[in-house]
């Protein structure tokens, strides 16, 4: 998977590149709008991450030029300004997602993966596994080590999310959005409590422990 990063802030750009490469992506980094556009038109990328404020030409102009050149790759915008007009303009121009700085890298990674997954045929419901844990989406059954585990509907949805995105660090905001459809920052530790309760059901008394806390970032179900 090849990702184009267009970001003029040196530190942000370098860390985005490093982070995405360590997450298994191939990346190119451009520092200006025109350079980014050139790479975007000539290279074969699966996704572009564009900063809004860029020297030479801004992110909107780069996106417009990319679309005009027939490039349909998904584009994720990064902006330091959170204005409704910006969002609307971005989405109208055909941006696929929009993240406001400062953002959590885990959040960015999760969104990048969501965008890259989009458009692919959704996998048929089949049983999901991790070591001796098995989740059957059709029969809505969870077993571990052959033992049946009773989960509430939301716990089931949470576990299914973890299993479908194995190995990915899931930020709390993403979990709230995907499992509860809550799209705001809660000022409580609701997600921590919910994950803790799920863990007590699927990890307590079993080895290895499947769900791991990544401090400051979120939770991951290890592959």
């Amino acid at each position, binding site marked *: 998977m090849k990702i184009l990063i267009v970001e003029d802030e040196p530190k942000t750009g370098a860390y985005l590149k490093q982070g995405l490469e360590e997450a298994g992506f191939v990346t190119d980094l451009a520092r200006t709008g025109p350079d980014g556009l050139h790479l975007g038109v000539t290279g074969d990328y699966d996704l572009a991450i564009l900063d809004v404020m860029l020297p030479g030409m801004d992110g909107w102009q780069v996106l417009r030029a990319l679309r005009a050149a027939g490039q349909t790759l998904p584009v994720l915008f990064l902006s330091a300004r959170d204005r409704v007009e910006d969002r609307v303009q971005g989405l109208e121009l055909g941006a696929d997602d929009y993240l406001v700085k400062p953002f959590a890298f885990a959040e960015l990674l999760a969104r990048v993966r969501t965008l890259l997954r989009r458009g692919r045929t959704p996998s048929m419901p089949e049983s999901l596994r991790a070591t001796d844990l098995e989740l059957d989406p059709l029969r809505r059954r969870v077993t571990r080590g052959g033992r049946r585990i009773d989960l509430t509907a939301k716990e089931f949805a949470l576990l299914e999310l973890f299993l479908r995105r194995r190995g990915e660090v899931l930020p709390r905001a993403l979990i709230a959005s995907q499992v509860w459809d809550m*799209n*705001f*920052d809660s000022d409580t*530790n609701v997600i921590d409590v919910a994950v803790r*309760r799920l863990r007590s059901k699927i990890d307590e008394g079993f080895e290895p422990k499947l769900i791991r806390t990544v*401090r400051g970032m979120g939770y991951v179900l290890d592959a």
Partner: protein
Amino acid sequence: MSPRTLTHRIALLFALVVALVLGALGVALDRAVDAHFREMDQHVLAGKIELVANLLAKARDPAALDLLPQQLDDALVGHHGLALAVLDADGRIWFASSTETFPHPLLEAARRSERSLITWSAQGRPYRGLAARLPPTGGQQGAYTVAVALDIRHHAEFMALFRRSLVLAMLLAAIVTAALGWAVTARALRPLREMGATAASISASRLDARLPAAGLPPELASLAQAFNQMLDRLQDAFRRLSDFSADLAHELRTPLTNLMTQTQVVLSRARDAAAYRETLESALEEYERLARMIDDMLFLAKADNRLLVPQRETVDLGLEARRLIEFHEALAEEAGVTLSLEGEARVSGDRVMLQRALANLLGNAIRHTGRGRTVRVTLRQTGTAAVIAVENPGPAIPAEHLPRLFDRFYRIDPARREGGGEHTGLGLAIVKSIAEAHGGGVKARSEPGLTRFELHLPSA
């Protein structure tokens, strides 16, 4: 051109009005005096004509006629400045006093037998004259014409003097009234100037200054009162704002101090990778807290600048409340708290914002409820509004704190300021700004055993 001062204008207006009134009065007086002189002159002239007519009527024979000029001269003695001419039927001058200076226009008038009073000037002197044709009597051949003229220099001199005095009086009166107007206005406006001076001296550090409203005329007292009320509001807003920036600095300093201290301690000697990892993870948690606080602050700043525009759609509050209760279920169970919901309501509003507001109220209630108790959410639809009430059992919040609960970073117990990780102390302020962005408001009530927060929203 800069606008004239009020004092200037009023003084000028005073002077103008006085000048106009006196001017009109002067013209009227001038006319009256002039008319009076004319009447007097007419009277004198007509008397003389009558005298001449009598003398002529008595002179019935030529001898008597010959004597007549002498008699006429006698009659004129003592009448300084009086001129007389008698013309015979042919229009020749039969008699004329002081021919040298005799005014010719009068003779002209006499020839034309005009009976009206005419005024003219000759050799630099003003005259007024009257002429009359006398019907022939006895032995006279034809009618005589008599013309009399009066030197009215002394009248003219009097009129000129009179006019001069009038103009002088007018000017003087105008100046005096202007000065008076100036003085009175300046005096009347003094409180206004004092108000201005007080207002000018008010700065951020002296917002407690107030205008003295006592002793002011009623017109200005209401102004001073309004001004003072404005200052009250300003002072309050300013105090909140400066409290807020102080709190903000404090809130930011706590995570920054944590970050700096732990980083310095860890860097002070070589450690193993696990220790560095631990430090970075801890730092990340602080960064998250800072980022969340900045997000919340930006949200509030947008609300303050009326940039928070709800995306309107019909929101079923009952449905959202049930979903939020489900979302908070695990948290409530951990805290040993039961969540209950009653009622239904619908509003037109922004679903995500309203979710956030209700979530903040719920989170707040769960935090402050003891184990084994119940947080009650009640929805009520009235004719004009929907009310979301969140009640939790607990000790009463002292009345002085209630109005400030929705202030940013406000905490009843200042010692608890350092607060728990997730909670930024902005939750209730955000609830308030969301309610206000929807054209509604918030209320807090507390009595022993029960605290109740209400969110009022205009109905769908």
